[in-house]
């Protein structure tokens, strides 16, 4: 086994390191901790954070990539399979490996399309064949299927509930104070529901395709969960690319004024005057040409798809920093007239130090609010861009590619609805949780909204 660190993996690890460092820094400073404590008091915020962290967990597991060593060796050197797998793939290897022939509806034992089959008595019959894996343990699916599904779902939910209860009991024993906190009550109920749901789905998934299969027979549940990482990468890495531009240029333009301001304003006016979809499309088209012309740069197809994903993030970042930059410029213009900044200037503090010590910390709340607000917009944008044809690599599993593939099957009769529904469903839950969490963060951090509270 050889660990593989793709470009986006490295950036995600960097992001986690930055996040951990920020958390450590904030923990020891009461004034920075205060708004986060307000977030922690919001039930909606905490429940959405719980859902988000589940998505994050799947995404992170899917980020630990490796390549399996092949059994045969060439010239004494180990040869690795060209296929790049992740820890998540290994965890759900059952889902990944059980590939049917073509479409099948959720929780069924039969294939979507009729086939000619030879009966034992030699007659040829056209009928729906049994699935290779889905419900294969049933002797007579038509009679047993419904009962078996209910039984498995209930059993799985019960095990999930039990596990959640044991976990909650353990936590309250360790931290008795947790019992009294109000938002934890909502979080506790949410944990119970989610645990029951996960238990039921996991137990069903061991014998069925819970969300059906797609055109080439892959499990839709597996595809939906793989899409999470792509969505998270686009939502977070784009921010990582955009932040330095927006923060540095915005603050510099607002504080320094003069020709620096003119140049920076000119650059962002030019960039923002091009409708963003068109600018992204133009840049992605050019990026595609570069990648196609240099196919030899990439060792595996996964590396190539990953570089495309990274480029998409960079392009989205470069085209989207202008909004935040304008906000920060305005805020810096306001701050530079404040007395404490003028005092710092009078004391002869260097410009660089004023920027980093006095201006940047005081615009961080704007940065944070806009980052969490942008996340959901980026996840939604990915699907649209993939439809337009300027999104991720067609081989990358993402909500956009899933919707794109499933859209063409709407015309079939009976309709193939499950792939489309699961992509939209997963996306809705992710984006809704992100939006609700963003609202909680905004309410806690926006100084205009909580002036009364901090005065008391």
């Amino acid at each position, binding site marked *: 086994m050889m660990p593989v660190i793709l470009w986006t993996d490295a950036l995600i690890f960097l992001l986690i390191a930055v996040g951990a460092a920020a958390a450590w820094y904030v923990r020891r400073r009461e004034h920075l901790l205060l708004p986060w404590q307000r977030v922690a008091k919001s039930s909606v915020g905490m429940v959405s954070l719980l859902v988000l962290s589940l998505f994050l967990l799947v995404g992170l597991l899917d980020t630990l990539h490796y390549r399996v060593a092949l059994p045969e060796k060439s010239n004494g050197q180990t040869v690795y399979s060209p296929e790049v797998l992740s820890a998540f793939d290994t965890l759900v290897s059952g889902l990944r490996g059980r590939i049917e022939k073509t479409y099948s509806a959720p929780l069924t034992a039969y294939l979507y399309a009729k086939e000619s089959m030879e009966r034992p008595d030699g007659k040829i019959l056209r009928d729906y064949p049994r699935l290779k894996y889905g419900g294969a343990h049933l002797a007579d699916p038509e009679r047993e299927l419904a009962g078996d599904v209910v039984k498995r779902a209930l059993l799985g939910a019960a095990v999930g509930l039990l596990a959640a209860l044991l976990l909650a009991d353990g936590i309250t024993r360790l931290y008795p104070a947790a019992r009294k906190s109000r938002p934890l009550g909502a979080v506790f109920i949410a944990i119970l529901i989610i645990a029951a749901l996960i238990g039921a789905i996991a137990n069903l998934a061991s014998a069925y395709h819970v969300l059906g299969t797609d055109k080439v027979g892959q499990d839709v549940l597996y595809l939906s969960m793989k899409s999470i990482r792509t969505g998270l990468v686009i939502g977070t890495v784009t921010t990582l690319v955009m932040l330095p531009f927006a923060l540095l240029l915005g603050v510099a333009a607002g504080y320094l004024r003069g020709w620096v301001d003119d140049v920076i304003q000119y650059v962002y006016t030019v960039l923002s005057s*091009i*409708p963003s979809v068109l600018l992204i499309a133009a840049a992605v088209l050019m990026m595609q040409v570069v990648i196609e012309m240099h196919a030899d740069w990439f060792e595996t197809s996964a590396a190539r798809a990953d570089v495309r994903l990274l480029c998409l993030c960079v392009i989205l970042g470069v085209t989207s920093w202008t909004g935040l930059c304008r906000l920060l410029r305005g805020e810096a213009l306001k701050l530079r007239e404040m007395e404490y900044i003028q005092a710092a200037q009078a004391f002869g503090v260097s410009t660089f130090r004023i920027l980093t010590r006095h201006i940047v910390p005081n615009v961080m709340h704007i940065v944070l609010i806009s980052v969490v607000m942008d996340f959901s917009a980026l996840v939604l944008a990915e699907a649209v861009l993939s439809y337009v044809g300027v999104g991720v690599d067609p081989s990358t599993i993402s909500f956009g590619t899933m919707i794109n593939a499933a859209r063409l099957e709407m015309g079939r009769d009976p309709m193939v609805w499950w792939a489309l529904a699961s992509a939209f469903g997963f996306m809705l839950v992710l984006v*809704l949780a992100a939006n609700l969490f963003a609202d909680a963060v905004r309410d806690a951090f926006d100084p205009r909204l909580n002036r009364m509270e901090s005065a008391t």
Partner: protein
Amino acid sequence: MISYLVRRIFYAIPILIGVNLLTFALFFVVNTPDDMARIQLGIKRVTPEAIEKWKQQRGYDKPLLLNSAASGAGKITDTIFWQKSASMFVFDFGYSDDGRNISREIQTRMMPSLAIALPTFLVGLVVYVSFALLMTLFRGTALDITGVALCVLLMSVSGLFYIIGGQFMVSKLWHLVPISGYAGGLDSIKFVVLPIAIGVAGSIGSSGRWYRTIFLEEVGKDYVRTARAKGLSELRVLFRHVLKNAMIPILTGVVVVIPLLFMGSLLTESFFGIPGLGSYTIDAINSQDFSVVRAMVFLGSVLYIAGLILTDISYTIVDPRVRLQ
């Protein structure tokens, strides 16, 4: 005011030059015309002669910025930059890969785009503002909270879902309107109703919430208290006072997009088969027709800047305190 406008238009020129240089760098420097030819003709089996022919047909066989072989003004004018990029300033977009005149294509495709985008914009404006005013009227009550929750839910749904779902329900299940297509004149109504309805419904969540925030900000101000103290009814306060005073933030966000309505919507037009500029752009992206994409980028930024100027003018109409000098 006239002198202000003239100055604003002059200010727009450096920005358009910036856009022009940016697109030139993107389309001709990042990838050379040779690369383009290879992508268009297929990477593997392509001869140098075929590339030369492709470039010659499209006028890409000239030097990028400076033609040292030519004499006089030809040194600058007989180049790719002059003929393909600078010429866009006089709206000469050249020819697309299938040999059609892009400028003429844009002219004929503007009307279908407008037939969808303009009604969507107007109906949307009325719907969103009244929805937001309703939420403001019942602010703090269960109705308002439900409305906001609904907004958050609606804005979390992918835009593709509205189009795919709406098309499926209305056209396929209920057979109310044709699935896609377009016709000129009055016949077009049955084709444009659904795209307009979906376009309005698609952004009711984000827009409704945005307008509500604007109105709530105004409702907290002193003049509203004065108006109530005079004994005006809440409805009158909202429509006569709050709505009028909220016009500046509303116009800031709304007027900018009016010129861009000409460009149509990429998604709606391609799903409903409307022969407008949006589907033109999508087709160009899919067939990698770079000259069309380049033209649309330039046209888009021209319209955006026109929108900014219109926004300034609209301020003077709604707020007599604003004077453009």
